[in-house]
Each structure stands twice: as structure tokens, then as C-alpha cells.
């Protein structure tokens, strides 16, 4: 197992970039997964509001009660400087001064200059409170216009604006299938698989198969088949280890294995075979490290952009998708989108996706064999093995 051991040593020296890719990917995926529960419930944002009620009427207190339903009312000394400091240091988000005469003006149907508001930032929440105040006065006026007394109008407005809007969280989960975060994890996985497998394995295979090394090895007593087999074994172990790591993390993120998870794993396994076949194909050419890196970037980034990894397929143009069909990552993404619930799940289509990916792997293997045969024919003086002819 001398070649296998050397392969692993070379791999170890070349695995820094792979480790960075894996660490960054998992470093993003795991925290996202742990914080993903926050998206399962919706909570109205609450502001710290300070109200200076200079009117001191039932109407003004009614308004304060409404604000208090979803916000925290903070009490401050009624001093302009104190309020300004509180806003500046963000002890409060919003300050409201209900001017004297508020109730009278509101009862008279006025909606302007009833109060003054102060805030430091135009956040969504601040705009929401401002709109709420505006809506409140308009609604009171509307109720009075429709014949309600001022007190009735206040009470009906309070009821109307206290009604919570029903919020439904949109879930991409396919009903008992992959969690959202796992879906996204598997969506970005092909980019990482291409970067890690192609970017790491290709330089190692190119090194081990460099002409001078193979020459020296061919002169030794090790059988050519044994050499190739040991390289294959080393490559297989690397791919398996990478895949196993990502699969275990995927299962942990998903909280277990279910049907969709199994399909996602199968999808990633077959896609890894495609990437491995692509790696073997590329490493058949005697290319330098810069070209290897370039090919890795083109394959990983190019396919990811074209096939819907970085931008969902639903947002890609028809022309792009038509071209992407000729790339294995497209079929991976189609299946993953089904598992995420972005598109309707169709078992037949899922099987087709896996079959097309497998076909890409087979095609690359056949292509590798053909290119190597062609190459060995062209380089016969240096590479063709001897077939001693009869004298």
C-alpha cells in the first residue's frame, strides 16, 4: 500500500483549501440551523415609547392604552432635554407629546396638530407607530362622521385597531420532509462538493500521475493495475469521507432521517460520483496548478450560477435553464427544489433527475477512457507499453 500511503500524504498537504471550504460552509450552516426556529413564529415588534400626556383627558389616555397594547410605555421626566437624551442614547425608540387640547380638537374632527412625535431612526417599527397614530385619528373622525358620538368613536376605534391581523408563516417544507435549513444546506452543497472534490483531488491525482513519476513507477516492480487501484482507493476514501461528513451534518440538522432526507442524501451521493468522474477526467490532462484552480472555479461557480444554486431556478430565464439542462448540477437542483417544497414533488421526475445525474457520471467515465486512449496513441513514443515483437 505504498502508493496509497503516499497518496494520502500528498492529499494531506493539499487539503488546506478543502478544509477552509468545509469549515466556512459548516460554520455558516450550523449557526443558521440553530437560529432557524426563530422563523417558525411571528412576533410583533415592540418599541419603547415615552408619552408626555399634556392633555390628560380620557381621550388621550385611550390613545396611550392603544399604544401600550403592543409597545412598552416608558415614563420619563417631562423635560425636553431628558427626552432628547433618551432618544439620542436609544433608551427609548419613540417620544410622543399629546398636546393640550387634543381631545377637543379630535372631537371637533381635526386630525392635524394633535400631537408631536420624535424619533432618531426611520425603522419599519417607527413608521408603523406613526401610521398607527395617523390611522387612529382618521378612524375616530370616520366613526364620528358616520354619526357616532365622540366617546363611541373612541371606543370603536380602539376595538377596530386592537384586532390582530392573522399571520401565516410561509413554509417551504414539503410536509414532514426536509426542514428549510436542510433544504438550503443541500441547495448549496453541490457548490462545496465541486470545490472540495475537484479542487483537492485533481491536483493530487495529477501529481501522482505526472509523466515522470509514472515513468519511474512503471520501471518498478509494482503492477500498473495495483498502482491505479491504490490511487482509486485513496480517491474513493477521500470522497466518501467528505460525503459522510456532509451527510452526518445534514441528518443532524434535519433532526433525523425521513424519506425526503434519504432522497437528498442519494442526490448528493450521485452528484459526488459525477464530480469524482469529472475530477478523474480533468486530471487526465497534464495541466498546471493555475489551470486546475481555474477549472475548479469555472465548474463550481459557473454551474452554481447557471443551475439555480445561487439564484433559484424560478428566477432564472428560460434560455439559461435550457442551457443548464446540459449540466448535472441542474438536475441536482431540480430534485432538491422538489424536496424543499419550492416545486411540487413528483416521484417520477425525482427518479429522472437521479438517472440523468448518473448518466453524466457514466458519460464522463466513458469520455475519460476515450481521451486517454486517444492521448496514449498520440504520445506513443513515450507512453505506449511495450509489446515485444518477434525477431
Amino acid at each position: 500500500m505504498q502508493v496509497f500511503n503516499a497518496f494520502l500524504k500528498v492529499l494531506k498537504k493539499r487539503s488546506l483549501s478543502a478544509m477552509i471550504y468545509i469549515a466556512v460552509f459548516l460554520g455558516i450552516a450550523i449557526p443558521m440551523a440553530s437560529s432557524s426556529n426563530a422563523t417558525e413564529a411571528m412576533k410583533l415588534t415592540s418599541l419603547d415609547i415615552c408619552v408626555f400626556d399634556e392633555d390628560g383627558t380620557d381621550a388621550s389616555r385611550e390613545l396611550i392604552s392603544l399604544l401600550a397594547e403592543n409597545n412598552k410605555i416608558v415614563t420619563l421626566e417631562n423635560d425636553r432635554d431628558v427626552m432628547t437624551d433618551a432618544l439620542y442614547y436609544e433608551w427609548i425608540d419613540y417620544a410622543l407629546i399629546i398636546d393640550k387640547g387634543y381631545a377637543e380638537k379630535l372631537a371637533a374632527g381635526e386630525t392635524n396638530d394633535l400631537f408631536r412625535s420624535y424619533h432618531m431612526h426611520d425603522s419599519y417599527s417607527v413608521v408603523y407607530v406613526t401610521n398607527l397614530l395617523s390611522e387612529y385619528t382618521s378612524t375616530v373622525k370616520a366613526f364620528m362622521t358616520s354619526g357616532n358620538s365622540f366617546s363611541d368613536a373612541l371606543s370603536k376605534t380602539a376595538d377596530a385597531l386592537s384586532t390582530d391581523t392573522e399571520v401565516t408563516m410561509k413554509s417551504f417544507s414539503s410536509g414532514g420532509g426536509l426542514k428549510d435549513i436542510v433544504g438550503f444546506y443541500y441547495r448549496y452543497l453541490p457548490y462545496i462538493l465541486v470545490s472540495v472534490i475537484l479542487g483537492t483531488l485533481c491536483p493530487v491525482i495529477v501529481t501522482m500521475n505526472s509523466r515522470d513519476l509514472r515513468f519511474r513507477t512503471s520501471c518498478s516492480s509494482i503492477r500498473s493495475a495495483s498502482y491505479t487501484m491504490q490511487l482509486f482507493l485513496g480517491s474513493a476514501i477521500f470522497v466518501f469521507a467528505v460525503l459522510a461528513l456532509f451527510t452526518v451534518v445534514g441528518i443532524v440538522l434535519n433532526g433525523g432521517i425521513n424519506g425526503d432526507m434519504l432522497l437528498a442524501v442519494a442526490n448528493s451521493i450521485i452528484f459526488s460520483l459525477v464530480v469524482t468522474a469529472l475530477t478523474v477526467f480533468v486530471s487526465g490532462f497534464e495541466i498546471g496548478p493555475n489551470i486546475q484552480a481555474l477549472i475548479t472555479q469555472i465548474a463550481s461557480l459557473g454551474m452554481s450560477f447557471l443551475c439555480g444554486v445561487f439564484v433559484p431556478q424560478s428566477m432564472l430565464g428560460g434560455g439559461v435553464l435550457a442551457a443548464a439542462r446540459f449540466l448535472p448540477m441542474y438536475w441536482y437542483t431540480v430534485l432538491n427544489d422538489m424536496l424543499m417544497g419550492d416545486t411540487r414533488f413528483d416521484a417520477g421526475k425525482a427518479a429522472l433527475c437521479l438517472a440523468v445525474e448518473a448518466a453524466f457520471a457514466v458519460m464522463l467515465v466513458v469520455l475519460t477512457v476515450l481521451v486517454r486512449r486517444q492521448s496514449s496513441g498520440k504520445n506513443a513514443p513515450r507512453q505506449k507499453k511495450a509489446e515485444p515483437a518477434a525477431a
Partner: protein
Amino acid sequence: MENTVVKIENLVKRYGELIALDHFSLEIKEGEIFGLLGPNGSGKTTTINCLLSLLSYDKGNIELFGKKMTPVSYDIKKDIGVIMQNVAVLNELTVYENIDYFCGLYISDKALRKKYVEEAVEFAGLGDFVKFYPKKLSGGLLRRLNIACGIAHKPKLIILDEPTVAVDPQSRNRILEGIEELNRAGATVIYTSHYMEEVEQLCTRIAIMDKGRKIAEGTKEELKRMIRNTETVTIEIIELPEEVRAQIASLPHVYSAEHDGERLVICCSGGKHNLIRILDVLQSRDLGFGRVYTELPTLNDVFLEITGKALRDKED
């Protein structure tokens, strides 16, 4: 009787229309340091590649250690060490790991391999560099590592293909001494080069190749006896009347006397006291001259006379 280690009979290798080896035959005995000398493109490397079964050939027969050599002759290959012109090591492994790796392709016993690797490290003078990576080594040390990787398994036949190309003189001497040491330890050596001085210094027998053919073979003394030139006399002289040059050219055993305005170069074939006769002519005409020196023929002279061209003129 010495055993025949390498036997090549009527080897023919064609690359399309080009005949790389033209009925090439060779026999190398055990314990020899055999030199294959020839310009680039003469067929030296093709011969080595055919010998190692890395190349097919169109006609002929190759036997190593009395057995027919084929690509699957692993029992023969285990006794061969190959050191090629291009350094073939793994840059990701240290010096020690590299030697261990290549030794391990032949020797599976770990304890024996460790002993062999340590001996190879000592042989190549790499003791201080075992933990270095090849990229940190100088050109000369890298060549020595290349050699250590090729000989660590203690092969009976060592093939060195231009191992000293682009090596500094100090490392070159060390490499040549190392080859002699390996030979003394019992290895048969095939050494290809277009550096005739190395071949002349090292090899017990030499074959000169050109255009895929063996044009001469023998010890260096035998080769030098094949040519007319036995001595070249060079005299630094600026003014030389034509009649004096002609008189020198007509002296017994002198077959050529050329004057280029600074030096008179006289080629002699056999005879004794040639230098005295030439100097007598110059002194009788009262002609002043500077340094005088004589040279015995080199392998380059042999090659020049046999092929009509200098050995190094054809470097690619």
C-alpha cells in the same frame, strides 16, 4: 566467466517514417559501467525506454539477466534501478519520505526498507536534509535525491540517463564518485550522456550512437585506436610563413597542419617524437612562438572522425 546482464539484438524502433533505432545490438556484462554516448536524438533514451519495456519496438530481442524483458517482467524489474534526466520525486513528501516511497515500490519489508533508506540517505549525502521538502533543495541536492530514490532498493542493474544535466561541478563529482561506489558494490551500470568527459572518466566500456545506430563500441582506449589521430600539437604562433606550415604538414606522421593566425594546430597519426621534429622546423627558421601543448585524442575526436561532426554540435 562474467554473466551477461543486458543483451539487445537487432533492435529496430520506428516512429512513423523516422527510424529511431536501426538494428541496434548491445551486450553488457556483469560489473561493467557501460556508457552510451551520442548527441541528443541519437537514440540513447529510446534504447533505455525499450530496455525497460516502456516502449514497444518493431523488431529485435531484449534480454535482461538472461530472461526476456516484457512489460510484465516484474521479477526482472525489481533488480533494476532507474535514474532519469528529469527529477521525478513528490514535492509533498520530505527527502526521507521520498526515498522510502520509491524504495517501498520494490521492498515491502519495513525493517529492511528502513535500513536501505538510511543507507541511501548516507550514500547520497542527504543526512542533513532528510526532513527537507524537495522544493527547499538546491539543484545538486535534488539530483542526489533523485539518485537516492533510484538506487535505495539496491538494484543489480542501474540505468542512469543524463543524471548530471544542469548540475554544479561539486555535485557532479559527487554523483560520479557515487556511481563508481555503486559499481564497486556490485551493480552493473548503464550510463547515458552527451558529456564525453564524464563517460570517459567513468565507463569501462562505451558505445557511440548516432542516428539510431551503434557506430563504435569498446573501451576508451580501443575507441581511440580506431581513429587516425593519436596526438594533437598546438603552438601559439602569430606569424607563420606558408612554406613553413607546408614543411610541417609534410613531416612524417603529420596528416594536418592548420594555422588560424594565432595558433598552429598539427594533427599526428602514430609515430614518436613528433613534437621535437615540429619544434626543430620552427627553430631552424628562427621563428618565435609562445605556449606549446599536446593533447591525446578525446572521445569527441573519436566521434568527430567517425561521424564527421562534433558530439556537442547537435544538442537540441
